[in-house]
């Protein structure tokens, strides 16, 4: 959290002192003198006992000078004004032929040895380890690697901030607010803010803007992720950890490609994630691939049919780090991108009129994947220190970390030039703890067409969105033809936070615009400038029917489970690698709330079955956006009633906001692939401390080993240990 701009000098000084003292602890942590585990053990990091830190360490405790929780000094803006820089479109990742990958991808992890850098923890000179960090052997082999052979290679790295000399926005400069992609793109939040140092900002390929992965159904991708972070774990600029595990949120892939929190890999290694991009149900529905609605753009205006249920078609994903107990730090540090998936239904071409294509706003030049009028927006609040370097509070393990500067596509409150026509915006809440609620500054109507990865059954006309929980995606169509050239209209955030627990109040549009909120991230954050008429007529459509929900009614419900999300959790295990402690936890089927242990199995749905899961906010006035990996769910009830499910939540989802005191009942079918997956709160501070559990499908698909052994990665290689499990999983 942050101090009000009106805070007294004494208060600011106090907060500066606290920040400095905390930096010493951060350094002690980084130098290995103490561990986060020590802090927990000493009771300094738990749900109580922090009060002794008053005036010395914890700027969040009540101050002697004010009655409100204190915070850090505001991020200095170095005189920069809002809406003075263009918003960069995402940087499209190159798609190469699979043959360009050296070494060639393999079904099982590539165990070729390399000499390890002795700066890595636990390494002595001369040690060797595998070049690929994926756990070895058949259980972590790519499932269905021969049935769905990869076609496209996308090599990426995570590394420290550097200048981007290969920016590909995927559109001409006229559709990117005049940004010349040939001009080197510095790692800055604004041209007049300092460059981020290589230890402050860690992004995909080390550069800004954030990266966009482009894929289409039936065309498998190898996402070869190379870890190019510093070998020395202490070289983290105060937060973040150099081990990585990348989650494709919410891919329907085998678990070996899911970014399991315990399947992390080290600097100097790569990890091949195989995204086959298949429709759920491919083993049992439309197996002959005869339905054109279950299809993919074929590159020349036609459709390549694929197996599976066309009602499972997905559109807007993102990918981000999922390192156990470090997700918040690493995502905040920049390790996140987006993934547009194209299909016969949602092909990113608004002109092709084949009776299947929904013709959503996009463009016409390419067969699929036109980005002209299809714009990714990643919203995230950030904070920086007096030197302008990204700053994070690793001590805030309780409520969540909310910062004071609003960014879109990782730049500070930009403008975006638009034509007088319809646009689709794929809006991602890429914050670590903050919720958003969006309106246009003139209250004009918008059409919500998708929620999370999925097009809705029917579009919904709104003037303000619902709360956008962390990791949720809303696809919104805005029609700028109602404006005249020269006009501006802005996106406005209506949701005020006082801290990371939950939004403290929903503001009206007029309040949000008034500038009276204590929260600097309330108000306008993205200004649209209407600059011209479109050169081509807008032929895009928003059909009254988009993608109906898969009909699961004929599939018997094999099991009902209940998960309670709350504080006061305990830990039953003490594994130094797999378990963690924190205030937050999940109680399964009436059991105690437990802290995360990725070696513990809390649920094991049977392959092919359907279940009903109740997700319950246990006694808190706060909110939890709960994410369930791998399968899309349908919300059956909110707070016990189907009538409480708003129109925009009536499609498929992968993040379920429980709401304060609320509960959600969902149904899912578990099929096609197996392995270990997760369920967790996507307030990533809750997730890391330690509101996360492992569930797995281990009786079908490929793994066929019950229960699955838990991977324990080391630089020298991944070993396995027997998992623990709850009763009656």
């Amino acid at each position, binding site marked *: 959290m942050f101090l009000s701009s009106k805070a007294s000098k004494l208060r600011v000084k106090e907060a500066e002192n606290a920040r400095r003292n905390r930096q010493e602890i951060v350094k002690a942590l980084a130098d290995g003198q103490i561990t986060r585990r020590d802090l927990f053990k000493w009771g300094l990091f738990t749900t109580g006992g922090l009060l002794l830190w008053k005036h010395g360490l914890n700027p969040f405790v009540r101050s002697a000078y004010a009655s409100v929780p204190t915070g850090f000094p505001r991020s200095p803006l170095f005189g920069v004004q809002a809406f003075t820089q263009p918003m960069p479109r995402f940087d499209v990742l190159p798609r190469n032929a699979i043959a360009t990958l050296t070494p060639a991808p393999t079904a099982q992890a590539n165990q070729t040895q390399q000499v390890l850098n002795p700066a890595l923890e636990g390494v002595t000179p001369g040690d060797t380890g595998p070049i690929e960090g994926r756990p070895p052997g058949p259980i972590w082999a790519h499932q269905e690697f021969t049935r769905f052979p990869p076609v496209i290679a996308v090599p990426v790295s995570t590394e420290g901030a550097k200048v981007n000399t290969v920016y590909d926005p995927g559109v001409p400069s006229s559709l990117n607010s005049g940004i010349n992609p040939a001009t080197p793109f510095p790692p800055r939040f604004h041209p007049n803010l300092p460059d981020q140092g290589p230890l402050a900002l860690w992004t995909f390929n080390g550069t800004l803007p954030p990266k966009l992965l482009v894929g289409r159904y039936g065309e498998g991708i190898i996402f070869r992720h190379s870890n190019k972070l510093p070998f020395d774990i202490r070289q983290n600029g105060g937060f973040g950890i150099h081990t990585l595990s990348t989650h494709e949120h919410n891919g329907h892939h085998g678990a070996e490609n899911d970014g399991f929190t315990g399947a992390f890999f080290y600097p100097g290694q790569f990890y091949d994630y195989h995204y086959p991009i298949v429709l759920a149900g491919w083993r049992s529905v439309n197996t002959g691939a005869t339905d054109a609605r279950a299809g993919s753009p074929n590159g020349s205006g036609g459709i390549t049919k694929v197996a599976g249920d066309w009602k499972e078609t997905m559109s807007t994903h993102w990918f981000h780090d999922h390192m156990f107990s470090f997700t918040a730090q690493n995502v905040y540090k920049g390790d996140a991108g987006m993934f547009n998936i194209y299909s016969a239904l949602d092909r990113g071409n608004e002109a092709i009129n084949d009776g299947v294509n929904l013709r959503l706003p996009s463009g016409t030049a390419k067969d699929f994947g036109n980005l002209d009028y299809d714009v990714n927006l990643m919203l995230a609040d950030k904070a920086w220190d007096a030197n302008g370097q990204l700053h994070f509070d690793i001590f805030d393990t309780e409520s969540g970390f909310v910062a004071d500067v609003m960014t879109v596509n990782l730049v500070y409150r930009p403008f975006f030039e638009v034509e007088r026509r319809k646009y689709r915006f794929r809006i991602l809440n890429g914050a670590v703890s903050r919720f958003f609620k969006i309106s246009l500054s*003139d209250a004009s109507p918008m059409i919500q067409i998708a929620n999370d990865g999925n097009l809705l059954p029917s579009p919904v006309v709104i003037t303000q969105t619902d709360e956008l929980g962390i990791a949720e995606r809303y696809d919104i169509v805005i029609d700028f033809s109602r404006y005249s050239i020269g006009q501006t209209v802005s996106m406005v955030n209506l949701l005020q936070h006082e801290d990371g627990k939950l939004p403290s109040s929903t503001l009206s*549009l007029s309040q949000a615009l008034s500038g009276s909120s204590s929260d600097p991230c309330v108000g306008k954050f993205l200004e649209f400038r209407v600059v011209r008429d479109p050169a081509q007529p807008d032929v895009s459509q928003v059909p009254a029917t988009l993608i109906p929900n898969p009909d699961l009614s004929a599939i018997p419900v094999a099991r009902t489970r209940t998960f309670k999300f709350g504080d006061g959790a305990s830990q039953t295990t003490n594994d130094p690698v797999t378990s963690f402690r924190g205030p937050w936890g999940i109680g399964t089927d009436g059991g105690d709330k437990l802290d995360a242990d990725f070696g513990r199995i809390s649920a094991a749905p049977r392959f092919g079955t359907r279940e009903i899961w109740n997700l319950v906010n246990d006694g808190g006035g706060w909110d939890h956006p709960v994410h369930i990996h791998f399968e899309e769910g349908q919300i059956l009830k909110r707070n016990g009633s189907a009538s409480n499910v708003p129109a925009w939540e009536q499609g498929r989802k992968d993040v379920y906001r429980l709401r304060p005191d609320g509960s959600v009942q969902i149904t899912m079918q578990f099929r096609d692939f197996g392995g270990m997956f997760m369920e967790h709160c996507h307030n990533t501070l809750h997730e890391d401390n330690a509101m996360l559990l492992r569930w797995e499908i281990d009786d079908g698909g490929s793994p066929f080993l019950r229960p699955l052994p838990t991977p324990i990665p080391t630089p020298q290689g991944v070993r396995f240990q027997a998992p623990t499990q709850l009763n009656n999983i």
Partner: protein
Amino acid sequence: MKIRRLPVGAVALSLFAVVLSGLLWWAGTPARAAFAPTVALIPVSGTVTGQPESVKFSGQAQVSSELVLDTSKFNLPPAVILTFDLSGVSGTGSSSGAKYVAGGNGTNVYRRLVSADTVEITFPFTRGTTMSVSSAGLASVRSGVVTFALSFDTNTGAITKGTATVATPYFPN
């Protein structure tokens, strides 16, 4: 709620010579009572001006209020989640006499519970009887703003009385 004082021995963190003599540990939270939302019907009236015609709205908004009581250690103040349903509100065109329908059902806000609150939301409306999207997109959809003046029972979160006024959105840049 239970508070349990754990017999934690003094632990010195030599770095800062900070000594902890003990700490509070919350043993967890009791199961919460479920608070069924209360629903109030609030009379709505007012006019949205603009092209192609002014639209006069009347009817009753259904506003549900769900009390949120925090049972955690945070002791968050009581709050309400208000959910709005404007399907009982309709408009009449000033020159055409045509019916207009209001959308935005399910719009919800989170507010601290106070005895009297003013809550302003915006809503889309269009001529006809359903708020469906046509191939023309949004050209025919307009927006209104409705301001609710609500009184609450601060024990139950229930709305005890209220009125609502529709107006033309005016949010100068």
